[in-house]
């Protein structure tokens, strides 16, 4: 049998030259007449080691990375095919501490299998959850998801089972499952990785959601910045359709469920669920007032489940291994696992799936290995552009929805961006306001006008114009935005601003007044 050589097709690996490495490996295989096949897998999530080349030797996968195309010939010379020693050899990939210490439930197959091989997917436990769901009553599926304690991984943390129950109970001839894959938060890439690395798990999760609620049609709304995820999902949906996983009779159940992939158009606000629904309908991505809830009147006014990618992709393992298995991980009201996305100025950036409850300090100092620049950590932004900046003084905060809320922060989609001491927090606060101004949908005044006034006020502080008065004004403006905005964009932009002001007051101190040189 041919030896399998794994080279990721994940966008992060591609961005670091994986295609060139794959070309070089293919050339060596041909030139040397080696019996081997290249499998383009997803990423394991250890992105400082990408492109990570793995070779299967005696049932074990030996890793080499980070590999550049010019290293490839040398790798073969060193005996790559038998896991030979080389300065870039990492040993058995599963034994690398970063991977070994994780609890991979949702990402169990990501980086392991060929993402577009349904046979590979099934051989690694895929479709077991859907098979079980097919034989169950909708109300029992919903109960399992509720009992698992799964909460929306998009950021809001709303219990997924309760959302599903509302749609199940809502009257309607047509219902929809909408997957929110508009992952726009800086520092997050879990949705992208699972769509590129294990697309069938999302398809399976959506099909289960369909069976549970009586919905027959699903949409995946993927941001246009993710062309590789769009391509992978499109191909996976076609394969699933041909195999009868999707279509008029899901796995022969007689129940229909189909999925269509849709591409966003560069509007961050469409990650907000009601704006996303408007966008899918072909309108401007303007936020809707709630009520009515999307569960009652969602897409085309029909009852709609709208869930984040990771929420839906976590359902198959819950259905397969049982609600209790999932619920037993985690702390407090945050049950199960969370794929941490470690980014920014760190030594070991990547994806780390683990039960809730690690402290921020453990994540930044131990798992991420501190800063890439070697300078001290100044601030950590958790939860994307609308998340708070945490100083080292708050590093004892456990990673949990409630614990972060208690410290005036949020875990959001679990993106963690680390800044070293060169960061200027006034500039970061200004950027939060600028971003909100660029991306505001314009429907509500606090967000639309407040963000622009916020930028101006931050500029005045930076120029030393009445700094005390303007700091008070900025805080007051944040208060108005927080409580007066219609959605999380305007409502949460104050988090990075207020946290920067509270924890890094020195950066907001009066600067020298710049005199015009006339």
């Amino acid at each position: 049998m041919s030896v399998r050589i794994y080279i990721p097709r994940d966008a992060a690996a591609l961005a670091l030259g994986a295609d060139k490495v794959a070309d070089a490996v293919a050339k060596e295989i041909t030139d040397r007449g080696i019996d081997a096949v290249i499998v383009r897998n997803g990423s394991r999530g250890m992105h400082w080691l990408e492109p990570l080349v793995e070779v299967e030797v005696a049932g074990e996968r030996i890793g080499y990375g980070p590999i550049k195309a010019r290293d490839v010939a040398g790798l073969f010379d060193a005996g790559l095919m038998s896991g030979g020693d080389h300065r870039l050899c990492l040993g058995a990939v599963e034994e690398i501490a970063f991977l070994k210490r994780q609890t991979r439930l949702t990402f169990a197959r990501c980086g392991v299998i060929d993402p577009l091989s349904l046979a590979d997917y099934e051989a690694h436990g895929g479709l077991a959850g859907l098979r079980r769901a097919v034989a169950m009553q909708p109300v029992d599926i919903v109960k399992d998801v509720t009992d698992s304690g799964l909460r929306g991984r998009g950021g809001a943390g709303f219990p997924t089972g309760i959302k599903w129950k509302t749609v199940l109970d809502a009257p309607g001839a047509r219902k929809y499952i909408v997957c929110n894959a508009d992952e726009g938060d800086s520092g997050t890439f879990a949705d992208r990785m699972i769509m590129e690395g294990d697309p069938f798990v999302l398809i399976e999760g959506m099909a289960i959601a369909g069976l549970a609620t009586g919905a027959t049609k699903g949409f995946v709304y993927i941001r246009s910045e993710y062309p590789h995820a769009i391509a992978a999902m499109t191909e996976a949906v076609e394969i699933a359709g041909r195999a009868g996983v999707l279509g008029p009779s899901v796995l022969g159940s007689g129940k229909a469920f189909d999925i269509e992939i849709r591409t966003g158009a560069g509007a961050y606000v469409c990650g907000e669920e009601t704006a996303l629904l408007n966008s899918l309908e072909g309108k401007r991505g303007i936020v809707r007032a709630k009520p009515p809830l999307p569960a009652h009147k969602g897409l085309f006014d029909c009852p709609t489940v709208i869930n984040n990618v990771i929420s839906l992709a976590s359902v198959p393992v819950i259905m397969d291994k049982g609600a209790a298995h999932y619920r037993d991980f985690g702390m407090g009201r945050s049950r199960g696992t969370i794929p941490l996305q470690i980014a920014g100025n760190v030594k070991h950036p990547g994806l780390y799936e683990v039960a809730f409850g690690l402290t921020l300090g453990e994540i930044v100092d131990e798992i991420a290995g501190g800063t890439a620049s070697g300078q001290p950590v100044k601030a950590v932004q958790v939860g994307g552009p609308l998340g708070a900046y945490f100083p080292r003084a708050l590093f004892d905060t456990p990673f949990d929805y409630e614990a972060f809320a208690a410290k005036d922060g949020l875990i959001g989609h679990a993106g963690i961006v680390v800044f070293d001491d060169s960061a200027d927090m006034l500039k970061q606060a200004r950027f939060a306001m600028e971003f909100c101004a660029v991306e505001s949908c314009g429907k509500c005044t606090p967000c639309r006008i407040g963000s622009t006034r916020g930028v101006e006020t931050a500029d005045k502080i930076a120029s030393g114009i009445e700094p005390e008065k303007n700091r008070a004004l900025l805080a007051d403006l944040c208060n108005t935005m927080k409580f007066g905005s219609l959605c999380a964009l305007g409502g949460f932009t104050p988090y990075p601003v207020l946290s920067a002001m509270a924890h890094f007051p020195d950066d907001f101190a009066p600067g020298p007044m710049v005199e015009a040189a006339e």
Partner: protein
Amino acid sequence: MNIRVANGDISDQVRDIVDRLKTLEGPMLPIVHEIQDVFGYVPQEALPVIAHGLNLSRAEVHGVVTFYHDYRNHPAGRHVLKLCRAESCQSMGGDRLAERVKAMLGIDWHGTTADGAITLEPVFCLGLCSCSPSAMLDGEVHGRVDVADIEEMIAEARR
């Protein structure tokens, strides 16, 4: 890479696209995406054709097309370079990189070089935050880039 066609063809081609896609649920974005794919931008002449095909007012179509950052109302340069401006890339010197690229190209955000080769656009996150700073040139992604990398990418694109 953008494709150009003669003006007279625009309405006919748009009509074909609209007719082909209008049976989708919520066909507007797929239609506008395809128009931009074909023409490299969304020509003004396309708007009344879309409005007619979908039974909407021109104002509604105009509203949608102008809402989304992706849609252009004029052709871009032959190559589009997107630099990430979001926080993760900022933490790895993205702002400094952007300033130097702007100076190198002699253009600001959304500008196109005088030879029509490169259009520079900001993007707020490519999901490559684990290899910041990141960039995308004509749909191809690049991570941990510095000025020299960008220079090389541009030189290659210009060839």
